[in-house]
């Protein structure tokens, strides 16, 4: 399916993959011994706990914080909830409401293990069933309505108000957008809870809440049926609440999630152990829910130089791939990220962009690559910006990318206005149809600039992965290997929410998913 416009050395690719696997396994071994407040809140959510206490604190936080303060989280919230369910003969939601009124979970008498297990199994079964139902609905709708041709046109809405977002998302879909991403409000990633209910007040984005997910999914279902094309929904499974958002997205039928193994560490200064542990469970849920993840390597190029640091993007793609596979994701769920971020003033820059995009395309032939538009070098010159986006659109269709984030001519000015989005869709539509089969028509010269650049990137990647493997991923990050950013191995936000699993730790949801996803033993890697 993928056009072989370049020669890519399969031995080197194999080597890179093997190095990445070793790097990922080191991390995975640590992950297997750790849980976090967010992982536990996710279990609580999947057991049916929702809503807030009188102060507006979400009930999953109420129960987990309580057990954490009692120093009992190493056993897993599932145990404490199930124990309470048995003790009080009330469902988890009522237990949580009781906690909000003062009930202490760890003060309840420990119940008969068999009955507790039974309760855990029962609520796990319900949770998985709900997720599966949404997955089946998606499968049915995609089959019945179809999706647009790749590259899929992906646009963002970010008005801050979910109801304005809906109008704009529907207008965009009607004009050809295949995927709608609701951008999250500034700094939600650092909130150690997920806000509740529909919201109308965000800055640079709209709060990710379960209610907002539902509102937008309904609006897109409506427009999908109207258009006879399944319009996909994206949000951010990232930050301090990664796995919780995965659970919300699974329940509300999101189709894609921004979800990266390292983004939180690098760009939000979140603690490493916290991030790695959270990403594992979040990915497992995404895997189970049939959600496609979008990794965030494009972000490296907003702080580091796109020409000099191209190999760091590819290396990170390999690492994200391995950590993803280990969490149960399949190749078709790995929307590995890269970006069109070379300085437009660079002579022959377009050739280097093509080299990068085509190389990644050939290395991950079965993954729905996520290609990001120019952002860093966009300026207030909206006319030139629109042309930069045109070249990006061309690069994308020429190299056969999958998930194509439309560049906005107003990138340097504001989050997109309704008209900007339509102009971008028209730009992409024109170019992608007008040059639809260009990628089948050409080959790059074996001794040319593009081929040479591709080889340099692959060589640089292998060497870079060797260096990381030598010191380990955590130290590599702490030494600024990625994105020109250094993060201390033991610092960062959310560190206090990391808990070492006890001998008696139990997470029935994770266990069930691992079983169903065929993850015989985590840390040993998944399946391609």
């Amino acid at each position: 399916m993928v056009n072989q416009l370049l020669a890519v050395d399969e031995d080197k690719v194999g080597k890179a993959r093997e190095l990445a696997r070793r790097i990922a396994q080191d991390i995975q071994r640590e992950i297997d011994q750790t849980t976090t407040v967010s992982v536990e809140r996710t279990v609580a959510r999947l057991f049916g706990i929702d809503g807030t206490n009188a102060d507006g604190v979400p009930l999953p936080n109420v129960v987990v914080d309580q057990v954490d303060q009692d120093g009992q989280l190493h056993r897993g919230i599932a145990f404490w909830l199930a124990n309470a369910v048995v003790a009080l003969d009330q469902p988890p939601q009522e237990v949580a409401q009781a906690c909000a009124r003062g009930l202490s979970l760890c003060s309840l008498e420990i119940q008969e293990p068999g009955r507790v297990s039974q309760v855990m199994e029962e609520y796990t079964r319900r949770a998985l069933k709900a997720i599966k139902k949404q997955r089946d609905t998606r499968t049915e709708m995609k089959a019945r309505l179809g999706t647009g041709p790749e590259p899929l046109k992906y646009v963002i809405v970010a008005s801050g108000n979910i109801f304005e977002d809906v109008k704009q998302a529907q207008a965009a879909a009607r004009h050809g957008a295949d995927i709608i991403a609701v951008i999250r409000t500034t700094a939600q990633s650092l909130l150690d809870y997920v806000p509740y209910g529909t919201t109308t007040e965000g800055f640079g984005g709209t709060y990710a809440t379960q209610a907002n997910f539902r509102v937008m999914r309904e609006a897109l279902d409506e427009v999908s049926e109207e258009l006879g094309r399944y319009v996909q929904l994206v949000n951010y499974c990232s930050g301090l609440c990664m796995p919780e958002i995965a659970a919300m997205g699974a329940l509300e039928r999101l189709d894609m999630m921004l979800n990266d193994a390292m983004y939180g560490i690098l760009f939000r200064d979140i603690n490493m152990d916290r991030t790695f542990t959270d990403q594992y469970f979040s990915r497992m849920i995404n895997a189970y829910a049939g959600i496609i993840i979008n990794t965030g390597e494009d972000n490296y190029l907003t702080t580091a130089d796109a020409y000099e640091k191209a190999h760091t993007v590819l290396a990170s793609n390999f690492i994200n791939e391995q950590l993803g596979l280990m969490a149960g994701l399949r190749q078709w769920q790995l929307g590995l990220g890269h970006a069109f971020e070379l300085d437009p003033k660079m002579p022959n820059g377009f050739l280097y962009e093509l080299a990068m995009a085509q190389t990644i395309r050939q290395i991950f032939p079965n993954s729905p690559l996520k290609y990001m538009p120019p952002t860093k070098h966009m300026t207030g010159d909206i006319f030139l910006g629109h042309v930069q986006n045109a070249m990006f659109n061309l690069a994308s269709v020429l190299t056969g990318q999958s998930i194509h984030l439309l560049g906005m001519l107003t990138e340097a000015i504001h989050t997109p206005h309704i008209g900007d989005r339509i102009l971008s869709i028209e730009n992409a539509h024109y170019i992608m149809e007008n040059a639809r089969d260009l990628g089948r028509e050409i080959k790059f010269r074996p001794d040319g600039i593009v081929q040479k650049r591709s080889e340099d990137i692959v060589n640089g990647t292998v060497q870079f992965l060797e260096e990381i493997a030598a010191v380990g991923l955590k130290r590599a990050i702490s030494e600024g290997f990625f994105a020109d950013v250094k993060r201390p191995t033991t610092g960062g936000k959310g560190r206090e929410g990391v808990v070492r699993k006890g001998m008696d730790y139990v997470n029935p949801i994770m266990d069930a998913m691992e079983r169903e996803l065929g993850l015989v033993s985590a840390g040993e890697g998944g399946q391609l």
Partner: protein
Amino acid sequence: MVQQIRPYGDSWGDGQVQLSFTLPLPAGPKAREAANRLVAQMGLENVQIVHEKDLHGFTFFIIYGRCRHSVDLNQLPEVEADEQPMGFEEINAFIQERIGRRIVVVGACTGTDAHTVGLDAIMNMKGYQGEYGLERYPWFETYNLGSQIPNEALLQKAVEVQADAVLVSQVVTQRDIHIKNLTELVELAEAEGLRPRLILVVGGPRIDRRLAAELGFDAGFGVGTTARDVAGFLAKEVARRLERGE
């Protein structure tokens, strides 16, 4: 109920407008100040000069701002909606029945205008965007005089063939040359006493109803017009005049 309509960027009432223009001043704080004052006079607030390009003696600006003005939806006149147009068969049947003879039209690109593609799209067999041209309509008799026809010659031909309607195309609009040409045509038709018995129609990419009416034409057609729109209008207008005995 007052319903104030403002431009919409990403939320109701935000008034967001983009504009660009060049000032004949060298780039610098003075040009910027002049730009700011101009857009303030236009009624924009929260003005952002997002791009400023030095053109040596001139400065090009790209600006975003919030438009203070608004339009009350309920104060808008009930603008006549674009009528559901008749089809090819329907129009011919209508003419046969209500008029009972062929409608005669003479068309030309007048003055120095040589852009025939638009007029041909309306008048010739082939038509435009899958719609046949007037020549193809059995109930129309058409004379397409082509390009660069003086107004006098056009009216002369109209008299000669006893035309019901005159179709004028004007594409070049620089320095309002079309306004001059079109005004001259109307005056000439009036001077020669032809105005009452001719339907005057003008078309072109910069033409619209409003302008056509202002200049004394009976109809004006802009971008994307097809022969069907014109044929339908003419059929109804000729019928109306017949009925009124004009």
